[in-house]
């Protein structure tokens, strides 16, 4: 709410000049920007704006448990800063059962290693009471010290949560004392080496195990999984020595597997949530055992090559996310028709062989289609949230020259476009759609028309996000103001998006079509409260002086802030309503 005018003088000068020029033709009242700035300064001194402060020293005497609770909600840096305000607070900090130690803030010092060591030793020596949660993340090459700190954190055998990340060249081997911490519930190890003893009987309480870039062998991992019988959440991220993932005899409900492994044994009836990500397109065996998990509700598969989906008729899937290099034709169509409880679907098929996709579902509430398709058929009446890529493979008719042709013949009409648009089949209306995100290539008439159809059919839409594709090459032709959106503006058609509140435009290039689209939306959406336009490149200086864009700041009173990266305006509309417009790079 504080209004700042912090652009350089040069920017202000240029802006004022432009505004001046604009005002000549339009008769707007121009006020001096300096005055505006002074007024803003004045505003800041307003007593109602003052930050409230506490009237007496009560917070200094807050119950220790409360102070602990507050400190535990802060990052390590903020917590340490806050802990030094008074003796009481230091005392509270020393008895918090959670300790997070991270050396990344020390890195900028030349003697960072000795500094960090000294710091940790001091923190540990002033501890009062056992540590229940201990997080340590460090790059120091000092095995002895790290061992000692871990011993310290484990000394009462009370530790419930351990996060350990040790990144030095040779993998740090976690001390064997770890295997006597039977109270452990969460264990997260990053970049270490874990070697459970041969006769290890498991962590009886362990529910959550996260191993990331940890050196552990197949047989050790197998033993660990079978001996920790209470495991519910598993994450295996890039384990270099592991070739096989077997979770058959576990109670795991949530599984997250990232990396390249050769074999999978995933059949498990307790599994509810699974994420399988493979960055390298390796051949794998038995990945499809995941589809034997009949109670699976959430599934994400990403990266695996040559995946063929089996019939999903017996499954209870509610959310599915697929991001795959290839998928046989009709896979998506079948998936949607077979999963009767599907609520959320997110698909991205990188194949250049475009497929026809039919989404016919009475349960689907959220849909994201992130790549091209040859044809998209949508019939999902419960859709609330959609994000659709609008294909840009050009057909003869939507090239600029034909557009020009239409115009010449005076045949350009919405009916004509509807008739010729064969890319997407939409329902008569989206009755529940509230959030819509579209990737549109402006200047491509077909894309623009499809985007328009989506927006127009979603009469309950309140949030719209448009991502601009690469603008269409104009083949040397210029249409001036008569593009699709200008046509709509001038058509006299009664187009109203009555519920639209927020509009965001990403990758804004500042092309004529994009600016016309913006104008059109401001015109057609009377309830708009917020517009945010994010530029693709830093053409800031240009856009500061682009008369088209300044269309929005028709009254300079509205300008709230200008800087070289950001323009913010708050425009008074009828009644008490305000429209906030923001341009940022």
């Amino acid at each position, binding site marked *: 709410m504080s209004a700042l005018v912090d652009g350089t003088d040069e920017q202000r000068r240029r802006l004022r000049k432009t505004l001046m020029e604009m005002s000549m033709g339009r008769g707007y009242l121009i006020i001096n920007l300096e005055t505006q700035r002074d007024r803003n300064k004045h505003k800041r001194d307003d007593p109602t704006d003052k930050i409230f*402060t506490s009237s007496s020293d009560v917070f200094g005497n807050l119950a220790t448990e409360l102070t602990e*609770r507050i400190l535990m909600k*802060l990052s390590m840096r903020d917590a340490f800063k806050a802990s030094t305000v*008074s003796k009481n607070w230091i005392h509270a900090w020393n008895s918090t059962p959670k300790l997070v130690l991270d050396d990344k803030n020390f890195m900028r010092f030349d003697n960072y290693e000795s500094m960090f060591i000294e710091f940790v030793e001091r923190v540990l020596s002033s501890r009062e009471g056992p540590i229940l949660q201990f997080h340590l993340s460090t790059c120091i090459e000092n095995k002895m010290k790290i061992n000692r700190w871990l011993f310290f954190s484990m000394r009462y055998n009370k530790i419930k949560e351990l996060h350990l990340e040790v990144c030095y060249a040779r993998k740090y081997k976690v001390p064997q004392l770890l295997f006597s911490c039977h109270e452990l519930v969460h264990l997260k190890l990053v970049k270490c080496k874990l070697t459970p003893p041969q006769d290890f009987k498991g962590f009886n309480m362990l529910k959550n195990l996260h191993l990331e870039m940890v050196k552990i062998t197949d047989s050790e991992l197998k033993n660990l999984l079978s001996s920790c019988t209470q495991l519910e959440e598993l994450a295996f991220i890039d384990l270099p020595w592991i070739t096989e993932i077997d979770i058959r005899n576990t109670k795991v409900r949530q599984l997250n597997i990232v990396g390249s492994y050769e074999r999978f044994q995933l059949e498990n009836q307790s599994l509810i949530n699974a994420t399988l990500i493979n960055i390298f397109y390796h051949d794998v065996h038995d990945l499809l055992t995941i589809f034997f998990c009949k109670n699976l509700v959430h599934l994400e598969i990403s990266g695996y090559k040559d995946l063929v989906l089996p019939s999903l008729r017996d499954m209870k899937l509610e959310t599915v996310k697929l991001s795959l290099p290839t998928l046989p034709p009709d896979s998506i169509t079948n998936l949607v028709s077979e999963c009767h409880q599907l609520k959320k679907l997110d698909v991205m098929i990188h194949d250049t062989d475009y497929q026809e996709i039919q989404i016919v579902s009475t349960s689907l509430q959220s849909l994201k289609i992130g790549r091209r398709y040859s044809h998209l058929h949508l019939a999902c009446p419960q859709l609330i949230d959609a994000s659709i890529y609008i294909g840009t493979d050009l057909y003869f008719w939507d090239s600029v020259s034909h557009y020009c042709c239409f115009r010449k013949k005076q045949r350009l009409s919405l009916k004509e476009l509807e008739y010729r648009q064969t890319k997407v089949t939409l329902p008569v209306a989206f009755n529940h759609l509230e959030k819509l995100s579209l990737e549109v290539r402006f200047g491509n008439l077909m894309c623009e028309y499809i985007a328009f159809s989506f927006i127009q059919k979603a009469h309950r839409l309140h949030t719209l996000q448009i991502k601009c594709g690469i603008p269409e090459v104009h083949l040397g032709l210029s249409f001036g103001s008569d593009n699709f959106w200008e046509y709509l503006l001038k058509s006299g058609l009664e187009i109203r998006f009555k519920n639209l509140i927020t509009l965001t435009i990403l990758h804004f290039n500042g092309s004529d079509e994009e600016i016309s689209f913006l104008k059109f939306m401001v015109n057609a959406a009377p309830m708009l409260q917020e517009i945010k336009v994010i530029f693709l490149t830093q053409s800031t200086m240009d856009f500061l002086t682009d008369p088209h864009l300044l269309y929005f700041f028709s009254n300079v009173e509205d300008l709230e802030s200008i800087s070289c990266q950001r323009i913010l305006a708050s425009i008074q509309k009828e009644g008490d309503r305000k429209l906030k417009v923001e341009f940022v790079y």
Partner: protein
Amino acid sequence: MVGVKKKMVTLVSSDGVEFVVEKRVAEQSLFIKNALNEGGVEEKVMIPIPKVTSDTLSSVLEYCEKHASATEFQENEIEEWDKEYIEKADLDLLYYLLQASYSMSIMGLMELGAKKVASLIRGKSPQEIRELFNIKNDFTPEQEEEIRREMQWNYE
């Protein structure tokens, strides 16, 4: 059920003001819930709430009332309400709410208050925190110098 009289309890604030509230509302506080269980089910129950003034108690009860009927609302609706509720409290009230939630064992309110205080602390220097919360600096200059040296890593 229709016709069944709602069970009421009377809470007495530290400054002697009586609040008559539904039992289910009062039971958002574990302290009161335990007190009621121990005392058996009586018709007229009076529970003194020490250290909580009437001003604070009325605000606390506003929270309890909303959360006693939380099941009627959608999750994000309650979240929104919580946000607004804690937003409008000034620092003094925030402090009293925290202390009351602690002494009355109202976990949700304690979390909410602690989160709010944490959000006010975030990014501030110790001196700024002291000024904001009016906390007295009770270190000797020597101690302060020592802290400053130790915390060197934590400053730009």
